[in-house]
């Protein structure tokens, strides 16, 4: 493990240690922090950072960025909220479908501008951020409901406030843990059977133990009663959405050609081109994936806020999303990063956000603490990398 750290492949060990330290600190300052109710709340708060973080990783891997993702999320949320409610009364699936088409479409638009006109994505999406902010304000304010619209439609509402039954929670988590363990074991066994380098048995058992313990903890957290008056149990639907998005994105990156090509393009676009890869097609795909996942993030966001308002701060959200990816270990310069980095980084940011509120520190301290964690994370990463032979 020390060897991996020196190789610059430090994994997420430093940041996981940092997370534990943060959690211990908050628990000492406030005994509520590690309660199951608060942890569930924390995870729900993390969903927006994680989803937007995943959206950004698609582009960060290429050395690109989408500064408009926060307002693209806001726009998707606003479209869905407005179409299911007010005068339109669309079915939720049409509303959600249109919202996601819109967010994907804007991603594609930035992609066309960046690729077709060879403009820097930083500038294109900065303009995009301003433009989408205007669009969100315009459509929200034009509803004539005083700058905010709340959700009355059950499906959108329940993305965050609806829960699986405890039984389904158990089934879902157990199946996930079993599936992951099985694929770990199977991959390793088929490598070993062909005399390829494989993971030692002990490490394998440790990994599976980690999965089982993690799954057990999640079941305990989600299935404990967290209601004050009426009992509330079970995993919020939003967590499933994050799990599915994370799983699908990780799968694409690790197991499919497009994923491989995105890494290649991020590492050396000219080499990828000479290898016959249709570089621009994959770059466009990454922009669209960022748009699509931003849209999904927006749906979870409006559900959590129980509506959309014209004071949504999509600019800050997107910076948190980039911070989440970078805290997790994704490079801003392309070629290096993983989807799971957004999960770890997003949870770290939500922990600060949640813990600071519990110990009654305000926004100023929260911003400063996030800044320190971000700086700390990139410093550790850069130090680990300096000792390594890997150039980037």
């Amino acid at each position, binding site marked *: 493990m020390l060897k991996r750290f020196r190789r610059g492949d430090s994994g997420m060990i430093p940041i996981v240690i940092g997370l534990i330290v943060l959690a211990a600190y908050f628990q000492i300052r406030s005994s509520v922090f590690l309660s199951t109710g608060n942890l569930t709340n924390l995870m729900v708060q993390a969903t927006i950072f994680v989803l937007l973080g995943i959206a950004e990783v698609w582009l960060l891997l290429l050395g690109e960025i989408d500064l408009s993702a926060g307002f693209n999320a806001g726009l998707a949320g606003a479209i869905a909220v407005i179409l299911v409610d007010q005068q339109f009364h669309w079915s939720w699936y049409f509303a959600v479908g249109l919202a996601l088409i819109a967010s994907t479409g804007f991603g594609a638009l930035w992609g066309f501008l960046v690729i077709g006109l060879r403009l820097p994505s930083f500038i294109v999406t900065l303009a995009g951020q301003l433009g989408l902010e205007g669009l969100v304000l315009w459509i929200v304010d034009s509803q004539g409901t005083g700058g905010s619209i709340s959700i009355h439609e059950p499906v959108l509402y329940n993305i965050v406030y609806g829960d699986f039954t405890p039984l389904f929670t158990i089934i879902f988590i157990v199946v996930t843990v079993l599936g992951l363990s099985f694929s770990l074991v199977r991959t390793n066994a088929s490598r070993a059977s062909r005399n390829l380098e494989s993971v030692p048995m002990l490490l394998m058992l440790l990994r599976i133990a980690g999965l089982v313990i993690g799954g057990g903890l999640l079941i305990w957290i989600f299935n404990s009663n967290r209601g004050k008056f009426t009992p509330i149990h079970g995993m919020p639907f939003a967590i499933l959405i994050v799990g599915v998005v994370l799983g699908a994105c990780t799968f694409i990156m690790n197991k*499919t*050609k497009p994923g491989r090509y995105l890494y290649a393009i991020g*590492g*050396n676009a*000219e080499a990828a081109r*000479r*290898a016959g890869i249709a570089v621009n097609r994959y770059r466009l795909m990454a922009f669209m994936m960022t748009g699509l996942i931003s849209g999904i993030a927006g749906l979870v966001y409006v559900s959590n806020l129980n509506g959309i308002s014209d004071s949504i701060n999509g600019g800050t959200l997107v910076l948190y999303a980039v911070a989440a990816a970078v805290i997790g270990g994704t490079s801003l310069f392309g070629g290096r990063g993983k989807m799971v980095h957004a999960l770890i980084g997003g949870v770290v940011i939500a922990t600060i956000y949640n813990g600071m509120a519990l110990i009654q520190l305000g926004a100023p301290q929260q911003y400063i603490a996030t800044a320190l964690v971000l700086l700390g994370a990139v410093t550790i990463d850069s130090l680990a990398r300096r000792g390594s*032979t890997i150039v980037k």
Partner: protein
Amino acid sequence: METTPENDNLTSSAVGQSGPVGSGVDSSAPMLLSLRDITKSFGAVQALQHVDLDIPAGQVTALIGDNGAGKSTLIKTVSGIWAPTSGSMYWQGQEVHVHTPRDATHLGIATVYQDLALCDNLDIVQNMYLGREDTKVGLLDEISMELATTKTLKDLSVSTVKSVRQLVGSLSGGQRQAVAVARAVMRESKLVILDEPTAALGVSQTAQVLDLIKTLSSHGIAVLVISHNLNDVFSVADRIAVMYLGTLVSHGPIANYDRNSAVEMITTGKSDRVAALAASN
């Protein structure tokens, strides 16, 4: 469809004769690759001027010339990095238009560039298979790619890499060259182009690459190799092509050249000795 361009003209003005020359080439068979009147300009810079070149199948052609003579520009044109400004290209007797690296790959041309074009953030296996990954039910088949990579490296007696799962960014220059060559070999190409493959290598690794070139041609694969090192050229090449200030001043069987005439051609663009040798052969 165009007709086959006439084979094997010595283009050197010093030679001043045309028609098939030399014993190694069957002049009735179509050339694997023929270039006719290829010109490439970068703005005001005329990097290639009216280049005619024939590359027969299964032989090693050495492309020599001073720095800036246009050797890399020529092979990049053949490999589809860019289209020529004018001129035509014939593959096995038929005119082809190679506009992208993919076009070249489809014809069976594999190129190892001077700047190697590897992804430092990917491992050896991933680089070897970049753009042509093995899949199983649509998903990357890592195991088969890893096994084949290990086998190819072994066949080429590349023994210095510790693990094929090492990131290419962590390899030495010689190891990177080996990976790049192995990658070209793996693609079952008809023509492998190597741009200064031995420039950065030590003695033993150079010998390995030269052996590798001989192995390729013994398997019927044509090799076009750029080299500055005349020792290398005379030890592996069947044919020589000389570039001078963007023009291809001479090409023909290696028997038409010796070391002195080659140096003369490289530095001045002409040599009476080549003419004499060509005439006597």
